[in-house]
């Protein structure tokens, strides 16, 4: 088994008296599309926040490609290749869609320090930005202000901004929320093909079980800040503890006779 891309050991986080992460041990491997699931309050977003540096780690260790990144600030982790999208749309409202994705593209290309030459000259970054828009299906909307986009398009842009930096490891926090079935299918297809390309490893936080089980190579189940189960989708689906936590409802294809409500 090759070395993990990102590994977390003993991650613990307390919000006052509430424990949102308890001694978490989890690892993500290159090329393995992982979904993180769990009931509300299980600590999924907290996990992403801790791994990406948005939340300072109170106890534990995070390693990326073997290097300790626990104390590294957000932007440094992004430069290493750890990126994320947000559950609530977190874009640049007064910039156009293209400008939105251009910022991470420029940063990834190391061009943001240029303060005397015009942006229009940055053809390489611009191409990357346009490719990101293409991947989420927003190519026609590049010139529109982000605040003027429809609700679903805003969510697509949210994922697009995260993709534009071409990270090695990308955490997507409920990416399909707020999308209609067409947009969702389009996005999932993009994720699948990008995952196969191999340059970006995806980790999805999801509630939609269809998405989880159709797309994932691996599923991690969180419950009350702890890892409940971790493995191949079928293995997780069959696990007794997981079924208990979800009351057997969402994981079943069809309802059993006499099942508990």
């Amino acid at each position, binding site marked *: 088994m090759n070395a993990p891309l990102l590994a977390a050991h003993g991650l613990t986080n307390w919000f006052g008296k509430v424990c949102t992460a308890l001694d978490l041990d989890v690892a993500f491997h290159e090329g393995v599309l992982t979904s993180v699931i769990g009931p509300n309050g299980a600590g999924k977003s907290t996990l992403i926040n801790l791994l*990406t540096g*948005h939340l300072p780690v109170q106890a534990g260790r995070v390693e990326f490609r073997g290097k300790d990144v626990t104390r590294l*600030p*957000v*932007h*440094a982790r*992004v*430069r290493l290749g750890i*990126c*994320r999208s947000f559950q609530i749309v*977190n*874009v*640049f*409202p*007064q*910039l156009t869609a293209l*400008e939105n994705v*251009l*910022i*991470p593209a*420029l*940063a*990834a290309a190391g*061009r*943001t*320090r*240029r*303060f*005397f*030459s*015009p*942006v*229009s000259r*940055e053809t390489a*970054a611009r191409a990357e930005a346009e490719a990101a828009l293409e991947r989420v299906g927003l190519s026609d909307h590049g010139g529109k202000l982000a605040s003027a986009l429809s609700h679903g398009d805003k969510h697509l842009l949210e994922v697009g*901004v*995260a993709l*534009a*930096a071409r990270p090695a490891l990308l955490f997507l926090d409920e990416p399909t929320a707020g999308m209609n079935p067409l947009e969702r299918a389009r996005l999932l297809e993009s994720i699948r093909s990008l995952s196969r390309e191999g340059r970006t490893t995806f980790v999805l936080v999801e509630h939609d079980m269809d998405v989880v089980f159709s797309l994932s190579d691996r599923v991690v189940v969180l419950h009350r800040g702890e890892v409940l189960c971790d493995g191949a989708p079928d293995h997780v689906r069959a696990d007794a503890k997981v079924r208990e936590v979800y009351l057997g409802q969402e994981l079943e294809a069809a309802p059993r006779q006499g099942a508990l409500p």
Partner: protein
Amino acid sequence: MWKSLARALPFLLLAALALLPLAGERFVTYLATRMMLLAIFAVGYDLLLGQTGLLSFGHGAFYAAGAYALGFFSLHVSQHPLLGVLVAVAAAALLGLAVGALCVRSSEVYFSMLTLAFGMMVYALVWNASDVTGGDDGLVGIMRAPLSLPGLSLPIARDAQFYYLVLLFFAAAVLAAWRIRRSPFGLVLTGMRENATRVAFAGVPVRRYRLAVFTMSAAFAGLSGGLETLLESSARPSMAHWTHSAEPMLVSLLGGLGTLSGPIVGSFLFIALREIVQRFTEHWMLGVGIILLLIIGAFRGGVVGTLHQLVERRRARETAP
């Protein structure tokens, strides 16, 4: 038609400015000089406020740093105006770097309060150290020595002559601001105004970039301050007071925050209005207050923004079926 007019406008303006002293009105020349000085200050200030979204009450300190640096340099080292300006810009930028390093660690309100604190500390320092700085009277007697370049010596003692030097720096400052705004760095700054967290998540060290634009805007302030010292032959502590920092804020809002032409238009308008209104009443600031209310209430884009909207609306009407 509008587009080509808009593109020609800066050159028209420059041409008008270049021809202005030839009309012979000394007072108008003086006013135009002051307008350009304020515009330099405001254009740099708007990089910080309009573009990056950071509100500073301490920029008067950098203005004063430039002014006093040039003053000291002129009185004790060399009267060469270009060297003096260089010293002014460098001093202001250095102070901006030092103060900025401490301030950018905080955000929003606390950032603004810290800039207020440091700005007023500089004011107090300059005011109190009267042996060195002349206290409330400031530095006086700074001469406008001729510009000595290899081969020629350009006099700037007369107001009309000095005007052209200021015009040169004004054009340079506007050009610099224009290029910064259009650059990748400028785009990132706008991103920081809109959503600093996301910019960090795009891989940009936000604090460092804030410090960079803070220092840049301080340099603009220092340039303006140094040039004012040459214009008025003096440097005064009031330059560092927070009420002086409010001027570029006001004129940028008046002209249009976050645009290049806004601070310029605002500066010209502000000084012109002040001259006119002060002839009739001493309560000019009351008028400023009312104008501010109007702008924030109804014309948030300032003069430039509102004009933009009118043009857009006219264009939409023309292209509508």
